């Protein structure tokens, strides 16, 4: 039981905001849903009764996910307001990287790639003049297509976009041939399909 609880904590931890359903947990752990639910309940009790824990389990529409303890909301708010908080610039940087390499690209496509909502970082980048609207996507909605600006090239010391260092998938590591990042290949296929 203890071991199963530890496994569940690990699994819910790494899956982040996505969480896992009981069915997914069943497949991964090869345990019965009854035992899994029991272990999750035990974890919940432990989180609630221990003064040390800063996390809790939230169930939403059949998906279990770890979240920070509600009692600590105030400190999380302080984190968000702290200007040295990396996450904010990290989000902007990730978004910028995607746009630089995949432009022209819509917000939805950026969000698919990052796996999180990206309105804020997009606004930040537009406000900073690093990206701008370069056109509209075909089809319903005619979503805004984003691309980088000259200001972006300036800020990053680039003559042109060709000067961007190549992405991992574009460089073939001498021994990696053939088994290069399967995920990236898959990802690019999907990406191409979406563009068609």
């Amino acid at each position, binding site marked *: 039981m203890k071991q199963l609880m530890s496994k569940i904590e690990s699994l819910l*931890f*790494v*899956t*982040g*905001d*996505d969480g*896992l*359903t009981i*069915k*997914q947990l069943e*497949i*991964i752990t090869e345990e019965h849903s009854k035992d899994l639910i029991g272990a999750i309940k035990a974890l919940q009790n432990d989180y609630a009764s221990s003064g040390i824990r800063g996390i809790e389990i939230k169930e939403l529409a059949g998906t279990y996910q770890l*979240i*920070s303890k509600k009692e600590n909301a105030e400190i*999380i*708010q302080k*984190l*968000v*307001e702290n*200007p040295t908080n990396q*996450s*904010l*610039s*990290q*989000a*902007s*940087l*990730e978004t*910028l*990287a*995607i746009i*630089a*390499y995949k432009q022209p690209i819509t917000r939805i496509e950026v969000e698919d*790639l*990052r*796996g*999180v*909502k990206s*309105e*804020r970082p997009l*606004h*930040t*980048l537009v*406000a*900073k003049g*690093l990206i701008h609207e370069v056109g509209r996507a075909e089809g319903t909605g005619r979503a805004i297509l984003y691309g980088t600006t000259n200001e972006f090239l300036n*800020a*990053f*010391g*680039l003559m042109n976009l060709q000067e*961007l*260092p190549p*992405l*991992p998938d574009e460089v073939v590591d001498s021994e990696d041939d053939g088994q290069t*990042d399967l*995920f*990236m290949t*898959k*990802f690019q296929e999907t990406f191409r399909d979406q563009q068609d």
Partner: protein
Amino acid sequence: MSYKVRLEAFEGPLDLLLHLIHRLEIDIYDIPMAELTVQYMDHIRAMQVMELNEASEYLVMAASLLAIKSKMLLPIHEGEVDDLDLQMEGQDPRDELVSRLIEYKKYKEAAETFQELEQTRAQYFTRPPSDLTDLQHISQLSFFDDSLNVYDMLGAFQKMLRRNVLKAPLTTKIARQELSVKDQMQSVFHTLKKRGGRCSFSDLFPVHDKTTLVVTFLSILELMKRQYITVSQQNNFEDLDVQLLIEKWEDESLETVDE
């Protein structure tokens, strides 16, 4: 004392030399140049296909091996000089080669340690930062570190990829395995309910993934069989029209669905 080796297995002439030294149990501080050179040449000859670029590096090394060998044959001064004297003078023609080999060996071994570090690192995982944007104030929108450069951007991209490695199978492999006709029947019911009990056939297939398409199709057939829905068509080639015939969904009624 000849044996086959794949030259692609070597990272260059220094790597090949270290291999030979190890294989021939040679003392790296007293290399018998004649023997090593012969062995090295044999291996170079055994190279079948090699890029010109790389071949030149092996050939340059071959040339310097020959040069060292011939220098060692030259008398330094009149009279006999034994090996020890030669070394003590620090003028041994092999010196430079030996120090290069030793230096390279250091980093070759360090590379092995790095591989171990990499493997240990693969034993644990971090989690993506939580989405805290709801807690942000509007004024924070413009926060962006101006000192960031292209490499920081690449780093951020790399971090995202590492994170997505965990996500990929969650949305594909596992999601697919758990998709059942039973679940999909319910999902079709809810879609219809949301749209006021009626929608077009193609609206029920928003996901373009083969497994989902098949399972959705099967679930529609099952719903028709149970007369939960009805499917009609006004004119030839027009989209099919799907209509809901029941008001409420009852889980018990699904007991008899074959998976």
